[in-house]
């Protein structure tokens, strides 16, 4: 934690560094893979598409870059950006450094939805195309249920809502466990793979599905930055300063849950991004959500694409689940963040 608010120079430096990370991530996403194609040739091909120069890529190489690597990279950017900004927003609105949308039932709801879809298809089928739809529905049902249980009472506090989220998650998880226990070993394996999260099935179609959600929801979250700074003095004081706390909470919890549900339904459960990205950004630029949220969008996007690059290269030709990579990188980073914060406060 910074001892004092950061200087403008420091913030600028961080913005430059994070943007550079994004550029590196985009290049890694397009260039690294079993077929080696150089950055210059990919760049040349990209320029030739807008009428500058001409491409030196074969049609196979072009397909690899633009139909496999590019959509996967773009989906990674979108997922990372959304998960990170949603986590940061949750931490602000609940004033709890460990909050993220998974906490209010998004993860458990999506898990149940996907499991329902997967165990109900015949053994030879892969994950059915309508699994994302059910996962999305499950996530939204779970969050709505949490909101109804925890947010309805007059004296509802952020803690009530989080407890309701824990209860709803437990209910959905047990239903999912029951379903899995009733189904075949093969579908259990498929459910498991889905739960660990992956960008392997990315296509321009899946990008098209999530783009509107990610744009609308992350813009809403970023716009809430100033309001979340006001929230840092607590509900009562924020209201006395003129903030409509109930409407704000409904709006930003709605936006970040919806965006996260859309992402989870396509890429599965990728953990840790929503927790560690905003924390790293906070460590670098201080506690104002006006800075944390937009920078989390950029850094989250870069982070997830870099993790995915690791996921698809370290054990090539097979892939590590992306959720495993984010956890392996995320857990130690989180420990470091905690100890830095402790040093900052002592």
């Amino acid at each position, binding site marked *: 934690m910074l001892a*004092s608010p950061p200087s403008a120079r420091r913030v600028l430096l961080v913005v430059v560094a994070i943007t550079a990370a994004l550029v590196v991530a985009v290049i890694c996403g397009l260039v690294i893979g079993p077929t080696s194609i150089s950055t210059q040739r990919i760049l040349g091909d990209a320029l030739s598409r807008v009428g500058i120069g001409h491409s030196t890529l074969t049609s196979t190489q072009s397909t690899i870059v633009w139909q496999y690597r590019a959509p996967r990279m773009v989906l990674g950017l979108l997922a990372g950006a959304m998960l990170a900004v949603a986590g940061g927003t949750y931490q602000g609105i609940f004033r709890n450094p460990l909050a993220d949308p998974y906490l209010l039932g998004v993860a458990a709801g999506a898990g149940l939805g996907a499991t329902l879809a997967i165990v109900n298809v015949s053994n030879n089928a892969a994950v059915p195309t309508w699994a994302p739809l059910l996962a999305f529905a499950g996530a939204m049902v779970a969050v709505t249920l949490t909101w109804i249980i925890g947010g309805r009472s007059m004296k509802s506090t952020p803690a009530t809502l989080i407890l309701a989220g824990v209860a709803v998650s437990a209910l959905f998880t047990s239903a999912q466990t029951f379903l899995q226990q009733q189904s075949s070993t093969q579908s259990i394996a498929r459910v498991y793979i889905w739960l660990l999260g992956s960008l392997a099935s990315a296509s321009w179609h899946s990008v098209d599905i999530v783009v509107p959600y990610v744009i609308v929801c992350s813009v809403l979250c970023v*716009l809430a930055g100033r*309001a979340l700074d*006001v929230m840092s003095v607590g509900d*009562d004081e924020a209201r*006395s*300063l*003129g903030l*409509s706390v109930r409407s704000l909470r409904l709006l930003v919890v709605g936006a970040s849950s919806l965006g996260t549900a859309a992402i989870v339904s396509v890429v599965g459960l990728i953990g840790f991004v929503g927790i560690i990205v905003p924390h790293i950004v906070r460590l670098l630029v201080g506690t*104002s959500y006006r800075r944390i949220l937009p920078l989390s969008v950029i850094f989250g996007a870069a982070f997830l694409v870099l993790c995915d690059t690791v996921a698809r290269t370290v054990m090539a030709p097979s892939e590590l689940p992306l959720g495993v990579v984010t956890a392996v990188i995320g857990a130690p980073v989180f420990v470091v963040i905690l100890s830095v914060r402790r040093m900052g406060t002592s």
Partner: protein
Amino acid sequence: MTMVQIDHVSLRAGSTTLVSDVSLDVTGGSWCTIIGPNGAGKTTLVAAVAGLRTLYRGSVSIDGELLADLNERRRARLVAYVPQHPEIPAGMSVEEYVALGRVSFHGVLHAPSLRDREVVAGVLERLELTDFRRRDSASLSGGERQRMVLARALAQATKVVVLDEPTTGLDVRHQMDILELLKTEVAECGLTVIATLHDLTLAGLFTDRLVLLSRGAVVMDGPAYDVIRSTQLAESYGTTLRVVTVDGIDVVVPVRGDAHR
């Protein structure tokens, strides 16, 4: 002219009545202090005056406007609130913290205007916080911190400020400093102050009017001189009190009962 009108207000938590049928009219540009033993309902009452509690019965209006009819933003333009234990967010500078008082003017989607920044600078100057403005708000001492919270309330530029135990945790000198600052705002800017105070001597020293609250109801209401000397005061606190006048100042002294002599 009546600035704050508390009309037959009752507040409940579940089935427990915290404040019952309180009516008070507070004149503009005056200072009214609510005193009473712990659990008398002082905190609940002032939070209600700030529009932060749902009334069970009755109404509160400020400057002729019913609080229940207003949204948070319009309420924030009428009344500012300083809680007993304000939350001080780490990592926010003193200037940023005080500028929170201007949110109801520029809104949460816009940056503070030039006017907002001028007001903040003026308040920082008036409360001698200018030198601290870049410091982390969480790094201030108790006295500086309380001045900063008061600065945020004054930055709201409201006609009424409600304070819950503004001297909590401060040493004698800093208690006097805060109360003197408020007294100046009342005298020079026509601010209306409604505050709760534990220290009866200070309450009598700074305030025009004392309202004695006990078990949620008004027991006595009048000039400080009368309330401090009333038999109801000691009765409400359940102890023996004596008023001694030193250099023209009424000092309220607790007296040990016979059993302790």
